[in-house]
């Protein structure tokens, strides 16, 4: 390092006569170092921090290191910590808080489409059913992505292939499907008749849009099942 002797500290000049102790911290340097480490958005080595300073004001590496150590110490008991990783120092959320903070990044699950719900219901009630069967009943084509989603969630499975040209898959519901709805057998689902009667007990507005948010919905209709859907 052919660095010229350290320029005076940023604000108050230290008495040049005094012997600088190894761990004496220059408060202003420390402030800048802390700000840099917070703003960097990437791990920073001691050297990299040093180079953020304009050339004529660059503190020595040792000073930067002392500042980093001091900052690290300051945050020892805070929810974030200054941590040294392979490529330098970075601030990170303390591990024991990650359970809380991770919820920040949980994306709100999307809602399944009406078409998916219908497809699932048809498979449940009409299994084993091919895609063609579903399309016949719904009157519109069923997108591959719906079938794919249902297979991926393991709510349906291919139980066989129908021996007609193209050998379409026959879908049936799974054990996971039953588990998800907390029933032990399809028998526990309402019969078609009951479903039709279910309609009578729902008020008109909910029939038009039974999944609309509970805005004008009478509470007893929505029942306790509704609450998890946000």
């Amino acid at each position, binding site marked *: 390092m052919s660095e010229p002797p350290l320029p005076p500290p940023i604000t108050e000049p230290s008495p040049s006569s005094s012997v600088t102790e190894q761990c004496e911290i220059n408060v202003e340097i420390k402030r800048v170092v802390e*700000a840099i480490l917070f703003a960097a958005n990437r791990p920073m080595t001691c050297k990299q921090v040093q180079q953020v300073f304009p050339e004529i004001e660059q503190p020595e590496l040792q000073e930067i290191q002392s500042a980093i150590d001091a900052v690290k110490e300051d945050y020892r008991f805070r929810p974030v910590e200054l941590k040294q990783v392979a490529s330098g120092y970075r601030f*990170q959320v303390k591990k024991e808080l990650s359970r809380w903070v991770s919820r920040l990044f949980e*994306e709100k699950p999307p809602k399944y489409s009406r078409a998916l719900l219908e497809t699932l219901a048809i498979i449940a009630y009409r*299994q084993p059913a091919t895609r063609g069967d579903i399309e016949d009943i719904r009157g519109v084509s069923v997108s591959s992505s719906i079938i794919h989603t249902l297979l991926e969630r393991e709510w349906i499975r291919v*139980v066989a292939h129908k021996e007609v040209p193209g050998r379409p898959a026959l879908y049936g519901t799974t054990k996971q499907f039953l588990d998800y709805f907390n029933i032990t057998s399809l*028998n526990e689902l309402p019969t078609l008749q009951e*479903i039709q009667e*279910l309609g009578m007990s729902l008020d008109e507005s909910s029939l038009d849009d039974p*999944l609309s948010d509970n805005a004008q919905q009478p509470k007893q209709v929505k029942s306790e099942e509704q609450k*998890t859907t946000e």
Partner: protein
Amino acid sequence: MSENANLDTTEVLVPSPVFAMVNGAPFNKLPDDLYIPPDALEVLLDTFEGPLDLLLYLIRRQNLDVVNIPIAMITHQYIAYIQIMGVLNLELAAEYLVMAALLAEIKSRMLLPRQAEAEEDEEDPRATLIRRLQEYELMKNAAEEIDLLPRIERDIFAVGVDISALRDVEQNLPDIQLKEMLLAFQDVLKRVEQLSHHHITKEPLSVRERMSAILENLKGADSLLFSQLFIRKEGRHGVVVSFLAILELSKERLIDIIQSEPFAEIRVRTATAATDN
């Protein structure tokens, strides 16, 4: 085009040639009151944000109050600028010419004797112009104030902490409620009723469930014994369900029921294309 512009620019630097024709008269000297070296002029003109900006510049340069603009003088200067801009081949927005016309109109009006009745009818164009200049100046200054506000990327730096450890959070899957599915199905049934040529028969669901189960059992095997499809411990009810499921599967041509010879054990296998014929 650009060559032309360069040519004109160099011409500006040479004092003798004619810059422009003003009111039909050759104009070979920059107006004294412009105070701008010719080569700087081009840059400057280019930075005007429009006729109001230019006008404001002309007024402010002389420390004049917007409300007391000496229309004659300003008009003269403004038109001189416009001429020069034309000579310099600066792209001249039509708005500049509109303003020149407006200024000329105001100037000519002021030469005419006042007609009180007429003025009541229509607004004094000079007052309108003054109002516009004031409003523009206000917004221009507001823009400068906004530019001075501390802002992200320049004065404000967000703080970031590492969250890579938190990133691999399991993506939540959508939830559905049984009721949602049933209501969806109810709609389907209603539509089916309206279409009426479709028929959804009303087998018990346990039969439907069993149908899937039987098909799946057959998947691995070439064929299964009829008796293998019944689960003894399910009792009478289970036997009935299985039997109905087999009948339904057969009806829907999803399975074949085979008896190779009289009194031989009945076997069941997945329907093959061959038996369809």
